[in-house]
């Protein structure tokens, strides 16, 4: 064999570093977990709290992840601006809800007071996404992959700072919904009502989206386009229209997620989309990008991991204020999945060639 020793060393180094990462990660998780459980600092009730919070947050990630996954499935492009679409939805709902709150509408009809802002957020987010697609993505279809990605990064910053210009750099507090305050007693455990409502709402939305994709004509067309644009066009499908509706549908989900997110965290600001956006992307990759049920599973897994993780394995490692590194857990997961299993948990779509 004519490989130089240097090259062999390099190959060795690559696998060495990869294995090093793996072992380090597994060891950290194991040691941390064992140490935490031994210390017994948290009661089982607290753990359940963490998990429930993880589920409601994860369901939001899942909802955002759907948009990434659908767009990637059809265009093989990372819609970097998707997180900011989520933010636009939150803003839209904030203004409507504040006005409705002022008139006392929300207090008298809490369900409508929740649903109407969600609907409005979905419409606004969908509309903005369609605009972004038309201006920043459509003309670049077929260009080398980095070109639309850079354009998407541009769109992301444009949206963020346009909203900063519109509404200022401050953080707005989403109006409180009285009906959602307090806890429900489920199987003897007190669980915050908001978290339950958010998770349930997210699951309903996902179910709706899933049935749209699986059972309607548009959904069928979407799946056809994601298989092959050319063939779909030959079958008489208006590919452009399908792509736009994919964007709009994904964005509507993100917009709804924006409202749910504001319900939990009660904060609406121009930069709020960045971190959830990246995390939702992580969720999408985790579940196998291009795969809709995968995005849902990925979101939940990520949400729970992120919520339980700091207390479970970081604290056990003797890390002070582990929740500061909550985001780092998500990013680490992102890097690790991209490294070791780019096809994700459920995904078969992306081979290493495509990834």
């Amino acid at each position, binding site marked *: *064999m*004519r*490989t130089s020793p240097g090259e062999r060393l390099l190959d060795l180094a690559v696998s060495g570093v990869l294995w090093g990462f793996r072992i380090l990660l597994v060891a950290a998780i194991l040691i941390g977990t064992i140490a935490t459980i031994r210390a017994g600092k948290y009661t089982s009730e607290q753990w359940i709290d963490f998990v429930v919070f993880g589920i409601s947050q994860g369901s939001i990630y899942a909802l955002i992840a759907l948009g990434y996954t659908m767009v990637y499935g059809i265009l093989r492009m990372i819609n970097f601006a998707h997180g900011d679409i989520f933010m636009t939805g939150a803003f839209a709902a904030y203004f409507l809800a504040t006005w409705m709150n002022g008139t006392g509408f929300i207090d008298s009809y809490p369900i409508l007071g929740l649903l109407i802002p969600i609907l409005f957020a979905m419409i606004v987010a969908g509309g903005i996404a369609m605009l972004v697609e038309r201006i920043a993505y459509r003309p670049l279809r077929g260009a080398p992959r980095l070109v639309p990605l850079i354009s998407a990064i541009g769109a992301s910053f444009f949206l963020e700072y346009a909203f900063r210009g519109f509404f200022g750099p401050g953080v707005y507090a989403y109006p409180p919904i009285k009906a959602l305050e307090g806890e429900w007693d489920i199987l003897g455990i007190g669980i915050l009502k908001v978290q339950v409502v958010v998770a349930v709402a997210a699951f309903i939305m996902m179910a709706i989206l899933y049935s749209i994709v699986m059972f309607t004509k548009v959904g069928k067309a979407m799946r056809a386009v994601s298989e092959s644009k050319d063939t779909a066009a030959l079958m008489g499908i208006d590919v452009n229209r399908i792509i736009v509706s994919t964007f709009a549908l994904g964005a509507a989900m993100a917009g709804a997620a924006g409202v749910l997110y504001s319900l939990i965290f009660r904060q609406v600001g121009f930069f709020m989309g960045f971190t959830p956006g990246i995390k939702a992307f992580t969720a999408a990759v985790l579940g196998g990008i291009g795969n809709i049920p995968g995005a849902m599973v990925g979101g939940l897994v990520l949400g729970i991991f992120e919520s339980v993780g700091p207390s479970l394995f970081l604290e056990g490692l003797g890390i002070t204020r582990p929740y500061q590194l909550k985001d780092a857990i998500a990013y680490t997961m992102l890097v690790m999945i991209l490294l070791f299993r780019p096809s994700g948990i459920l995904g*078969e779509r992306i081979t290493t*060639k495509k990834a």
Partner: protein
Amino acid sequence: MTTLLTATKVTKRFGGLVAVNAVDFEIPEKSIVSMIGPNGAGKTTFFNCITGFGKCDEGEIIFEGTPTQRLRPDQISRLGISRTYQNIRLFAEMSALENILVGQHIFLHSSWMSAVIGTPKVHQEERIALAEAQRLLDFVGLKGQGDMMARNLPYGAQRRLEIARALATKPKLLLLDEPSAGMNPRETEDLTAFIRQLRDELGITIFLIEHHMRVVMGISEHITVLDYGEKIAEGTPAEIQKNPRVIEAYLGRGAATEGMATAHERHSDKTNSKLR
């Protein structure tokens, strides 16, 4: 004559689809061999297995005594296998000369440090490389077009540049994937002569995939026919032309040999229009 490359039971699957199914194959040294078969028969996949583009799932490929299936494409190219592509894949934003220079990459050894410092050795090496690139450019008939950006070259010139780039790696085995696609009869004839010249003058073994029956029958010493990933026939051009299974694969039962050539012409026309 010794054998340059031996493939045994090469199999490649894409999910449930078996693209290449247990194909045995041999290339004698300094020969011109071809592989034909209808579209989607697995010819390019087989090519990819040889060059390491997509690893084959089963079987063994041995090149000059070295098993290649566990090597990366760059290592395989260093063994002396080079190729061209069905849908020309030049470095579009680089000049013709730079394209060939990339082909010489494996023969240049200056480290990045010495390149930054600009040692005399580096200059020497670059000079030689440049002269060699110019020579190859002349050899394929692109004299004076070295500064042209690859994407701006005319179609035929791009095909030739791709061959020049492949030759720059000084291959022992050159794989040509439909080299005559998109060429007019005149250019095809030139190409046939050129391929012969490669073998006769440079002693390079040629393995080609081709749809143009006139080219295949004209220059091949040995032909293998693939259909649905299976080898259905092999032999000399004369044997292949008479083989009933081949005719059946191409035209369905009962068709005449006469029709085979025309069908192919039509077929390659379709490929051409797509490429243009």
